[in-house]
């Protein structure tokens, strides 16, 4: 009896040491990751744009004297460069800068929130699937396969069509789209970790599942999963704006870039520069997120 307890203690110590080593290793990689990002001018540029977008979104009400939802119909479709309306006005006579500033709020939210939500659910499913053996994995993965069987946009459109238009429903349909791929990437990452020696060691040392998942798994799958998830934000922005463009996402009068493109579609032929402006914003913001994601992947060195 004595001996066995002693042994256990010993193992626990080993285990703790493992963990400590690993934490150290993690902080090291984290530092070099940040260093790499720091020295990447593209990452700087992208971050600058994103921070600018977040800043203008947060402070939008203080940056413009106009209302994003109501305008002066007498001033509709003013061209770019009109005094007081630098980017012109939309078909309802609303200031385009104001609409774009406020629209950025929705776009950012719809880029980040669904991905974050899907990350929680998909990540958890992936960890469970990857960690608890083949049977659990096949059940979860087979179920998720069904969602995988639809192109992301089709799935988003189908769910949004079923639930009806509106921001709230977009926040339901978009995460559903991303859960399956995130779960799959997570499960693969977990499986790779499972094959490593230290993981086996931790298992043999008798640590609880929760301990192992917390200390070993999450830390180690973080890089590949984070790198993958970072690629989804740009996609989420595009899908969300597509839904709004189809009239399935944000509904008027809320300013959102995709919805703005929808309502300005008729004005394309008379004020093309005004009408394509929201598209430029979607493009630039998605591009910034994609560039940053690229840099993150480079810095994490996870690109195959």
């Amino acid at each position, binding site marked *: 009896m004595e001996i066995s307890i002693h042994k256990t203690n010993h193992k626990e110590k080993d285990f703790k040491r493992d963990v400590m080593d690993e934490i150290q290793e993690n902080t090291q990689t984290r530092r070099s990751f940040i260093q790499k990002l720091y020295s990447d001018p593209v990452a700087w540029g992208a971050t600058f744009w994103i921070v600018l977008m977040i800043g203008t979104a947060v402070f939008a009400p203080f940056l413009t004297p106009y209302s994003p939802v109501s305008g002066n119909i007498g001033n509709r479709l003013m061209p770019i460069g009109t005094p007081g309306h630098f980017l012109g006005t939309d078909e309802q006579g609303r200031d385009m800068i104001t609409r774009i500033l406020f629209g950025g709020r929705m776009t950012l939210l719809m880029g980040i929130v669904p991905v974050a939500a899907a990350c929680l659910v998909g990540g958890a499913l992936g960890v469970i699937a990857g960690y608890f053996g083949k049977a659990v994995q096949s059940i979860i993965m087979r179920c998720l396969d*069904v969602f*995988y069987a*639809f*192109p992301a*946009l089709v799935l988003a459109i*189908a769910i949004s069509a079923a639930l009806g238009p509106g921001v709230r429903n977009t926040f339901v349909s978009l995460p559903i789209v991303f859960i399956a791929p995130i779960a799959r990437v997570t499960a693969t990452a977990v499986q790779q970790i499972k094959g490593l020696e230290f993981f086996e060691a931790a298992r043999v040392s008798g640590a609880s599942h929760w301990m192992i998942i917390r200390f070993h798994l999450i830390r180690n799958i973080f890089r590949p999963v984070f790198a993958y998830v970072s690629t989804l934000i740009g*996609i989420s922005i*595009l899908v969300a704006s597509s839904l709004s463009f189809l009239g399935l996402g944000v509904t008027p009068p809320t300013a959102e870039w995709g919805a703005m493109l929808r309502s300005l579609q008729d004005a394309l032929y008379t004020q093309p520069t005004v009408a394509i402006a929201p598209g430029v914003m979607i*493009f630039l913001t998605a591009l910034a997120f994609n*560039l940053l994601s690229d840099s993150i992947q480079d810095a994490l060195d996870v690109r195959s």
Partner: protein
Amino acid sequence: MTRLFHRFLQAIPTLFGITLVAFALVHIMPGSPIDALVPPDASADVRAQVIHIYGLDKPLPVQYVLWLTHAVRGDFGMSIGMRVPVNQLLAQAIQNTLILGVAAAFFSFVTGTVLGVLAGLNQGKWIDRMVSTLGLAGVSIPAYWLAMVMVILFSIQLGWLPSSGMHSQGQEGNVLDLLAHVVIPAIALGFTPVGVISRMVRTSLLQVVKQDFVLALRAKGLMRRQILWHLLRNAALPVLTVTGLELGYLLGGSILVETIFAWPGLGGLLNSAIGLRDIPVIQAGILLIGTLFVLMNIVVDFVNSAVDPRIQRT
């Protein structure tokens, strides 16, 4: 062949799941399908009769089994909104979508490959940077917006190409006319895959270039184009997989692009069916897209094994 068969067997549960999703989606839709079928001022017995014909009076599981057994036989019922058999609508729509999809796939595959090869072979040079930028632009650009911009530019301003539809009046059989109509939608739709594919080709090529055998090929005295052929064959594998996945993207993107160009395809059909709450069409459309996507993955798998001898063919 056995391998293909196995792959099919594996896909069966997924396909089954797709049917469940397709069936479930439309039943959580707001609005009752009966109201779309019968005018409310119709007499009660007419109403009952129509409900009976569409099986809407049965419990959901029974409706599902009914629908599935019909669907398996290719019978998706009558379109509620358009009052024609759904499979007739689908058959025509899928054909048109395939025309657009194949054109877009062709455009994106060729352009993506050429750009990717150029970038991969000129790593670090301006052309590489340009292609990388273009690639990222491709995955960041909203296809519908690109479509709108291209219509303004090429149809309205320059008047080079038609702005919508599939063919000019009375030119149904004219391939050149069809080509003129497909150019803008195909480019708008294929632009994102160009980005993805060119990036993939580049990465893949760079990996291949690093491998020993490339040096060995040079050591054999092979000429540049012969070596390039080896490089491409080797780089093709991941590219084919990605292209397969991008075909799925094309199916999705076609909903937006077809809507803008009034292209009479599956995407446009689905979009109008959603507006109409045309349940049989939505169900069949979603089922079709899901099934196509799954089949496409199988085909990609199969092509992969055909191209890569390292994948054992049993």
